Every structure is written in C-alpha cells, then in structure tokens.
C-alpha cells in the first residue's frame, strides 16, 4: 500500500515531466509541468511534511498559471492554439537532462543514509526548518519580510502608471 502511494505520484511526476517536451502546445507544456510539481508535492505529504507539500502545490500552480499568461498572452499567438515545439538543441538537452537525472538518482540511492535514531518529532516541518537554518532562522525570516517589501515597492515604483493608464489618455 505504502509502495503504491509512493510510486503512483512518482510515476506521474516523471511522466508529466517528460510530457512537457513531448506536447506541441504551450498551454499543455505549462500544465504538464504544473502536474509534475503537484505530484512532487504529494510525495512531500508522504514524508509527513504536510506544510511543505501543500505549499509546493500552492506555489507551483500559481507560478505556472502566471507563466502561462505571460508566455501565451504576451509572447505567443494570443488566439491560442498554434502548435509549437518546446525543444531547442535536442541532442544536447537530452544528454544533459538524462545525465542530471541519473546523477541525482544515484546520489539518492547510493548515499549511506543513517538509520533512524529516536522517534519522529512532533512537527517534522519545524525540525527540518531548524535543521537547515539552525540559529539563522530569525535572520532568514527577517530577510523574507524585507524581500517581500522590496518586491512590492519595486512593483509600485515601476508600474505607477500601470499597463492600462488608469488616469488620463494615451501616452
């Protein structure tokens, strides 16, 4: 049962990832990528990292939706369904991506992971966070807030006029 729970999202994640380069439509490629990330989010749920899993789904779907808008609305045929290839430099890309995939998979399989000592902590997400950040947690949270403020401020400054020219006529 546990194997099925692991393998089905795993197959979907890899399969959807391959589909990104097999389909001939911008929208399908974008949403295949989104599906792949959703499957990865589900794998995180299996690790009892509920927050990280759900946030992965949230962020990735949001990102892909925005990406679809920019790619299709501003760069591609706005009427939509022009077939187009998602591949450039076919051979090189294939060699590179297979190489990266194999080496990452090898690292995952060949690393001598330690046996579990003690019990699962109450909140694994928090433990992972403090494990990675250690004493820098507070600093990183502060940096997060500063980054967010910077993004908003930069947006306001750059787009005070907005795409639509709210006030006044055309330039």
């Amino acid at each position, binding site marked *: 049962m546990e194997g099925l729970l692991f393998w089905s999202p795993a197959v979907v994640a890899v399969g959807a990832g391959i589909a990104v380069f097999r389909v001939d439509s911008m929208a399908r490629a974008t949403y295949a990528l989104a599906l792949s990330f959703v499957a990865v989010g589900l794998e995180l749920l299996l690790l009892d990292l509920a927050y990280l899993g759900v946030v992965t789904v949230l962020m990735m779907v949001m990102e892909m939706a925005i990406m679809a808008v920019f790619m299709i609305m*501003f*760069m591609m045929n*706005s*009427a939509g*369904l*022009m*077939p187009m290839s998602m591949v450039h430099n076919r051979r090189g890309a294939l060699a590179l991506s297979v190489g990266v995939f194999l080496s990452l998979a090898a690292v995952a399989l060949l690393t001598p992971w330690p046996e579990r000592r003690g019990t699962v902590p109450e909140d694994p997400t928090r433990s992972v966070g403090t494990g990675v950040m250690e004493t820098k947690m507070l600093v990183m949270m502060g940096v997060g807030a500063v980054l967010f403020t910077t993004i908003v401020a930069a947006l306001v400054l750059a787009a005070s006029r907005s795409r639509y020219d709210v006030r*006044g*006529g*055309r330039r």
Partner: protein
Amino acid sequence: MGVRGARRGRGRLARRAAGCPHVLLVVCPGATGLRLETEAALAALGGVRALSPADADVLLVVGEPSAELRRAAEVTWSQLPGPRVRGVVAGPGRAEDVLRRLVPLLGSAEQEADAADRDDTAVPGPEGDPPGGLPMADRAEDRDGLTLDVLRVALGPVLPHWPAGLVVDTRLQGDVVQSATARVLRARAARGPSYWAPGPDASPDLRRGRCAASHLDALARLLSVTGWAGAASGAVALRDRLLAGEAHERVRADFRPWRRRVEGSRLLRWCTRDLGVLLPADARRLGVGGPAARAAPPHDVSARLRQWLVETDAVLGGAPPPDGGPRGEPAAAPSSALLGAAVELLPGRELAEARTVLASFDPDPDEPGAAPSVAAGAS
C-alpha cells in the same frame, strides 16, 4: 421503468426545459421599436436573453436584415448548440406570436435528433498552420515598444448590450484595444426618423416620453456593461412603463428612488470616474451635442451617466427635451459625432473600459445619416 417510462420522463424534461428559453436577438438597424416589443414579449413569456450563441436556444432576427447582417445571423445560427429554432420578427405586433410558435418546437423529438446528429466541427484547413484554417494573429509594437501579437476582433453586430447594427473592428493586444474602426451596417429599407426622436409633428407628450425612455434605455445598457444587472433591470422596467403610456408623474415617482440608488453607489463612481474623458474643446471639435456635451467636469463616464439621470428627471417632470431629441438636435444626426468621439477614446483602453466608454456615449445607429465609418488608433 421501461421504454415508455423513459419516454415519458424525457417528455417531462423537454416541457420543463422549454419553460425558460434563452433567446439571442439579432437586431437590425432601424428596428428599435420592434426590439422593445420583442424584449417585452420575451419577458412576458419568462424567457431570458442569451449572452452568446452557445447559450441560446432561439435565434430571433428582429427587423429586416441587410445582406451583411443576414450573413452574420447565419454564422450565429451555426453556433447554436441545439435543440434550436429560429424566426424573424418582421413587423410590429408579431413578436409574441412568433415566440409562442417557436418555443414549443424546442421540445419536439426532431429537435433532439437534430441536436444529436448534427456535425458542426469546422472542416480543418490544409495540414500544418494555421490550425483549422484560422488566420494567425499579426504582431505589432505595444505601448512600451515590445513586439507582441495582435488579434483582430470585430465587436458586434451580435453582442449583448450593444447598439443594433454597429460593428467596431478592433485590433487587440491581450485585451487592450490598439486601434478601432466603427461602421454601421446598412439598413435594408430607407430609414425614417429614429424611434427615440419622433418628428416635429408628434405630440410633445410623446416626444418627452421617448426622450426619457431613450435615456433609460441607454442607462440600462451602460449599467449592464458595468456588470450591475440589478440596476439595469430597474431602468428597463421604468422604460417599458413609459413606453406603455403610463403618466410621466407616476413613473417619475418610482424613478426617483432608483436614481438615488444609482447615484449613491460609491463602487459605481469608482469604476466610472476618470474614464473616457471628453473635454469641451474636443466635444466642439467633434461636433458632439446633447447630454454628452452638457456633462459636468471632469467630463468622464461618471459625469455623462449623471447627466442622463438629471435630464431624465427633468423631462419626466414636464420640461421639453433640451435639443428636441435625446442625443442632440435630431436634424444634425448627432450619433455620428457621438460614435466618432467614442471611437477616438477606444485605443489604449482595455476591453471592459472600451465597452463602458462606448456605452456612455450610446450612439443610435437608427439615425438616418449615421456615419458610415470612423477610425482611430495606430494602424
């Protein structure tokens, strides 16, 4: 439940379904009177006006279509999913009969068979691009100098809350209008005076009633475009009462609270202010008269809307229409200037704004001598 039971169940379903027909109107220029009649008949039968062909069961051509409008109606007809029926309201007093005859046909078994068997997928074009034989959109520079795709979209002649027979050919980038050209489809027969501005030999009472009703009709269209269906249906009800001949004083008594509600809406003011500003100098240059020219500063959609409310109130109170017609001096064909002003303001506007601006001028294609074609924007 056997075969007979299933058939009976299906019959009941069909009867229920025919109780709320969705009707798409294709209104010909010059057929305003017929349109109002048809709308009233539709409401009396419990029908709903469809927003798009895919939403419609009944296609009703109102008036006598010219060749071009007939083609548009034909294309629209091919987009109705079915069960579907179509008819023509060619003369006064027939709308209700036509609807009463058409709607029951929707429930028939032949209709179901037609809907099940019809194959309307367009024949695909030659292999490769463009898919389905649809033209690929062009590219052009946008406001910031980026080369982006443009799409040619004709607004009208079959579009909800849209002046009859008007077509605005636009070039869109995303949903921003880059350029616009407006034209009024020719009417089949020579046009008399507009329904809204009956000639000088009409009684003063009729002329006042028509003027107020015209403003209410325009207000309903504008409010519908901004997405306020509740207020729009109020305007339609008041309009129909006026046209049915109810005393102006009594209509005015109900107009007042409605006006307060519309004027009091802060959300509506937010969404219409600073939009579609037509400065007095530009109004003079373009020859715009009537309420649009009298609107107070800042001369935006909000101001024009308020001007309609004020003038409707005054006319209902017994004042004569300021220019003899609702849009300006009827002899001067004021709608050409209104259409020109609207089209000049369209480029650079996003689609919802563009439609709001156009609705705030409300040109009347029925007027004889309405401009054949006006253009604006980067070519």
